[in-house]
């Protein structure tokens, strides 16, 4: 998942839109929702491995070997572990939001200068990041 960068705050500063903190809040809400979708997908995948295994084991005509049980169990654990880690990262996004809000306030005092830079050297000035 693509992380938010300082670049997005600079773009918000030069965009000349009213109520930039509301826009920042919206950006973080999107970021949070996207991130939570990934978390749900990971937990869903881990759960579906286990459900499929249990369903197969309950069928009388299917014998589950120990290695199959180990591989499926480990895969489910690994996937759920990654999901857990992503959930923890996503849960802490509020800290990023507060830090970003503070930085946005500081950057706003440089708004006219940054806009002057963009109007002098083009709107896409400073777009190396996008080219990459």
């Amino acid at each position, binding site marked *: *998942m693509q*992380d*938010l*960068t*300082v*670049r*997005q*705050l*600079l773009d918000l500063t030069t965009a000349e839109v009213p109520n930039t903190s509301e826009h920042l809040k919206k950006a973080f809400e999107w970021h949070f929702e996207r991130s939570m979708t990934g978390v749900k997908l*990971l937990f869903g*995948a881990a759960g579906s*491995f286990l459900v*499929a*295994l249990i369903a*197969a084991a309950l069928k009388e005509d*299917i014998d*589950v*070997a120990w*290695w*199959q049980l180990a*591989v*499926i169990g*480990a*895969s*489910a654990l*690994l*996937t759920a572990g*990654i999901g857990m*880690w*992503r959930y923890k*990262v996503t849960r802490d996004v509020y*800290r*990023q939001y*507060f*830090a*970003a809000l503070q*930085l946005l306030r*500081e*950057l706003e*005092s*440089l*708004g*006219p*200068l*940054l*806009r*002057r*830079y*963009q109007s*002098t*050297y083009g709107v896409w*000035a*400073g*777009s*190396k*990041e996008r080219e990459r």
Partner: protein
Amino acid sequence: MDFVSLLAIVSALSSAAVAAFQGTILRRTHEEAEKALAEARKPTVELALREGDLKGLGDYFFDTLGRLPLADYAEDTDARRVVSDAVRNVESFVRADRSSVSDGSETLIQADAVRAEDEIAMGDLWAGLSRLRRRIELALRGAARTADIPVMRMGPSQLLRRLTAEEVVPKSAARPLHRAIGICNRGVHGDYVSSEEAEEALALAADGLAQIGGQ
């Protein structure tokens, strides 16, 4: 192949792919943040401000600081300090009430003072006006030193007010200098200044500085 074997293979492959993908993203983001932070620590802002290099300054903000992930900025106190220092440095430069002459840079500024005229003539107004403002501040500091008036880190406007009050700068010189500083401040702050206004600032500064012997 039976269903459970297929399930084992699919689950193993997909979890390994997810782990590899997350690992790669994490490593790349970390490397990118480290690279951006290493670049951000270079004294680019000081150099750009000294040289009146608006492009260098903007590139530093958009291409170097801009690459820093907000997650790293929020968690890493060093990253926060680097970004804050850069913002504060530029903010104090563009603010009208702060000194734009950094310690030890007086000789350098005096040596290339004439560049302000060339830059304004070439249309590089931000560089020209920031250089002109420093030139005025420098002349005022010289006058304050001669008159033995402590001025500490006052900006050009405050300096001018103080020196006018102390009658070191005559009112006939203070008026054009005040107007010239006002135009410079607007330009340096990033507000629109026409070429005619910039030329006017040059003429006003020349008039005022000539009267206080700063030219």
